[in-house]
Every structure is written in structure tokens, then in C-alpha cells.
């Protein structure tokens, strides 16, 4: 299946609105083992991106996504905000020049986004960060697309993989970022970055 620029803009808008809607819940997760601002950041980013998606006409989808990343960084630049901005910029870079996207394109962009987050934040898998949700999700998406499944099926597989990834690290102790400083008290608590990523993915998959 192929997605036109309108569909891409609407998908970004859905994700943006969902971040705003779930900001409070996400913030509570960050309050439990961080500084309680991921929701504040994501609300600001959600508002900025919804505005961007509504007002900025899409021509080159790649460039459009890249600029969305820059708008996100301006709006909210906590760790997660910056990682999200980087992911958007990298996904955009992987789609430069395109006016429509295939499922294969999406798979490539998904992986580029994950790698961008990894390079910017220098965390490892298992450190209990968003990486533990986005990498399995990107892999599952690519595998499903490779196996000829539909975009919707691939998205469902990615979502399931992200949730499994999130749950797998929940019992662990955070090894990087603010949550690492609360030590053993991070054990058993959901990583807010994983959860925020799932919120985004669910909105995109709709």
C-alpha cells in the first residue's frame, strides 16, 4: 500500500493530538522515577506538531518530516523531546524527495528513527529507555513487511513488539538518564519513554 502526503500529515496530527491527550498520564510515570516533565514536554511538542501539520503544506515528505523534527526540538527539548525530534529528522532524511510512502519506505524510516535515537542518546538496549520499545517495534515492522503482510498487520506487529519490549524492561533498574539516579526504586516502574512511544505508535497505526 502507498500513503500520500495527506495521509502522512493526518497521521502526524493524530500522534500529536494523542500526545497532548495523554500528557498527564505520561507525566505521572516520569514523576515516579524522573523529574515529572515528559508529559509537559510532549504536550508542548504535541501542540507544536499539530499546528505544524495543519499549517505547513507537504511537498517533499522527507523534508517536511525533517522540519517537523526541528519544530519539535524548539517546542520541547528534554531528553525525550530531543530524541523524538532526532527520530523525526532521521525518518525524514530517509524519505527525502518522496511525495508518497510505501510500506517498505516506512520500514526503512522506522529503523532510521530508532538508530537516530540511539546515536543521539548513546544508550544501549537494556538500559531501560525508549530504545527498548522502538528497536523491537522497528524490527517487527520490517519483518512483517518483508513477509508480505499488510501495513496494518505490520503496524499491529510493531505495536505488540513495543509493548513486549516495554514490559520486558519494567522490572529492570534504569541504567541511564534521570531514572538511573533513583537506583533500585526504578525497578518495577514503567519507563515513561517506552510508554510515550507506544502512545505515538498506536496513534500512527490507526
Amino acid at each position, binding site marked *: 500500500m502507498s500513503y500520500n502526503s495527506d495521509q502522512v500529515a493526518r497521521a502526524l496530527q493524530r500522534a500529536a493530538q494523542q500526545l497532548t491527550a495523554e500528557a498527564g498520564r505520561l*507525566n505521572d510515570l516520569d*514523576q515516579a*522515577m*524522573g*523529574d*515529572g*516533565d515528559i*508529559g*509537559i*514536554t510532549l504536550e*508542548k511538542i504535541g501542540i507544536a506538531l499539530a499546528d505544524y501539520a495543519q499549517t505547513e503544506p507537504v511537498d517533499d515528505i522527507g523534508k517536511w518530516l525533517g522540519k517537523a523534527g*526541528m519544530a519539535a*526540538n*524548539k517546542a*520541547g*527539548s*528534554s*531528553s*525525550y*523531546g*530531543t*530524541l523524538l525530534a*532526532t527520530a523525526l529528522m532521521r525518518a525524514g532524511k530517509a524519505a527525502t524527495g518522496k511525495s508518497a510512502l510505501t510500506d517498505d519506505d516506512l520500514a526503512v524510516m522506522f529503523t532510521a528513527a530508532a538508530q537516530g535515537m540511539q546515536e*543521539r*542518546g548513546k544508550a544501549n538496549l537494556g538500559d531501560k529507555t525508549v530504545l527498548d520499545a522502538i528497536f523491537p517495534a522497528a524490527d517487527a515492522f520490517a519483518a512483517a513487511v518483508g513477509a508480505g503482510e499488510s501495513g496494518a498487520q505490520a503496524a499491529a506487529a510493531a505495536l505488540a513488539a513495543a509493548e513486549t519490549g516495554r514490559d520486558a524492561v519494567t522490572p529492570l533498574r534504569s541504567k*541511564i*538518564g*534521570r531514572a*538511573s*539516579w*533513583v*537506583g533500585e*526504586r526504578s525497578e518495577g516502574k514503567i519507563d515513561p519513554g517506552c510508554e510515550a512511544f507506544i502512545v505515538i505508535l498506536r496513534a500512527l497505526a490507526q
Partner: protein
Amino acid sequence: MKKILNQAADFVNEMLDGLLLAHPDMLAYAGDDPHCIVRADAPVTDKVALATGGGSGHLPVFLGYVGKGMLDGCAVGDVFASPSSDQMYELTKRISSGKGVVYIYGNYGGDVMNFDMAAEMAAMDDIEVRTVLVKDDVASAPRAEAARRRGVAGMVFAFKVAGAMADKGGSLDDVVRVTEKMLAATGTMGVALSPCTVPRAGKPTFSIGEGEMEIGMGIHGEPGMKRESLQSADEITERMVSAILDDLQPDAGARVAVMVNGLGATPPEELYIIYRKVHALLDARDLRVHRPYVGEYATSMEMAGASITLAVLDDELAALLDHPAHTPFFMQV
């Protein structure tokens, strides 16, 4: 949430406005974005420029140390949130006088990622940027994982020696060298008795019982390493000083700079009760207090609690610490 403010969303901008109205002789906006603030006389010719940045809610950190003998500029984020890489980049261009720029800031993910991005942008303008990360909180990770430690009140000592070296005409290498030397010899630890509230969040960062305290907390209202029952001032002080000295391992007879820092709601009276014990403990270990700083130097809004910072000085560091400085929140003659 009980604060004197107007709209939570305007908290930072109105605070900045007030600060610049009160100190027009010392501070100026770098350009259109109120989150980029520089010395009124920036760029200072033929001087290594020093930039910092980070979230709001920590005054005097960060902005309060912009001024003569300390920093050239500061990128200001929302409460407890990093400023953006754009803001840092704008600031960098505005303070650079060609002798290089040093970023000195706390080791927090958001700040690191954004300052790194800003340095990449500045490099494209041929501005040489060096970074010194402040990681002084000995409670935030064991020494073996010191790279993971966060930056707290010790950053003021870093600003001070870096600023003094730059003020004396030191090169980019000199400034980086003394700042790193200072930080290698600096350790901090804190306790919190009450949380604080981020205006936009509207509820406290954590809840804590009447008789409890958080050991080893940060300056963002985050909980500490451990929760324990509240101890006496002497016990708390002894515990913090021991942890820092175990980490720094100073030689007997060494000179030590001391900072007893209030987190916001803890009154100076209590800080001096702590200082009294710090002094006695250092005395007992044959360490000489070089320059005590007792007051609010790095805060978390209305959080109650205190941190202790110790820095083992050699002659060069002692002289740099003694160098005069004059900023809205820090004056030394």
C-alpha cells in the same frame, strides 16, 4: 501548588523579564528569543567565552552567574527542562569573540543532547567549542560509574574557576584544563526534606512523610537514592561529608573549599548549623577550610533541604576561586 505567579506558562518569561529589568547593567537579551541571555557587554573582546544552560527553577543557577569574572551567556529552558539546541547555538554566536567557547553545564540527557547539537552547528561557523560536563553528585552513581553522575551545586565552583581563568586572559586550553581540574577535585551530596512543584505540572514532584528525608537527591525535585527517617543536623552532615571525602580522598593538610547550599526553603540558620559541623569534621581530619560559601547557590524552587560541596584546592585553583567576580547573584571582591 502554592506559588506567587500569573499563568504557569508565563513563569519563565516573566521571571526573565524581571531579572533583566532589575539588572540592566549586567544582563541583556542576546536577541529576540528571551531564553538566550548574555553579559551586558558581550561579546568581550579577546576572551574565551563561557556558556552554560539548563532548565529554570534553580536560581542562581544558571543565569545568576552570568557576569564579570564568571559566565558570558546562558541558554534558559523551561522549568527543569533543557533549552533547545537552536537557543544554545544563537547564544554561542552572540558571545564568541574568536578565542573559543566553553560549554559548562550539568550532565543531564536533554542538555547533553542539545548542547552537542549546538556545538555541531557552531562548528559549521568555525567557532571552536569545548565542553566540560559537571558531574559532581557523588550520590548519583559510584565512582566507577562517575560518567553517569549528575551535576549539582559543584557547577558553581566550575563557573568560578573557568570564569577567573578566562578573565585573566587564559587560552581555551587553559580554561578547559582548570575547569576539569576543579571538577575532578569536587564532590557534592544533598538531602531533601520536601519536594517542589513544577508550575506547569501543578503537583509536587514526590510526596514524603513528616519524619522522612531523601538522601542524595538531585536539584530537579527528583527523589534521591534512598528514603530514610529524618536525622539530626550533625548526623546528616557527617554522613554527607564522609561520603564526599571517601570519594575525593584528600591528603591530610589539604585546603578545601566548602559550599553549604540551601535548596530553597531551608533557612540560612539551618545552613549555618550544618556549616558548623562541616567545619568541625574537616578540622578533625586535618583539612583546612579555604573559603566557605553558605547560602543558596543552586536551588530547586521551594524544596527544603541542603547540599554540601567540597573541593580540594591546589594553589592555582585557590587563586582562581579568590579572583573577583560580579554577577547578579554572586559578588566577590
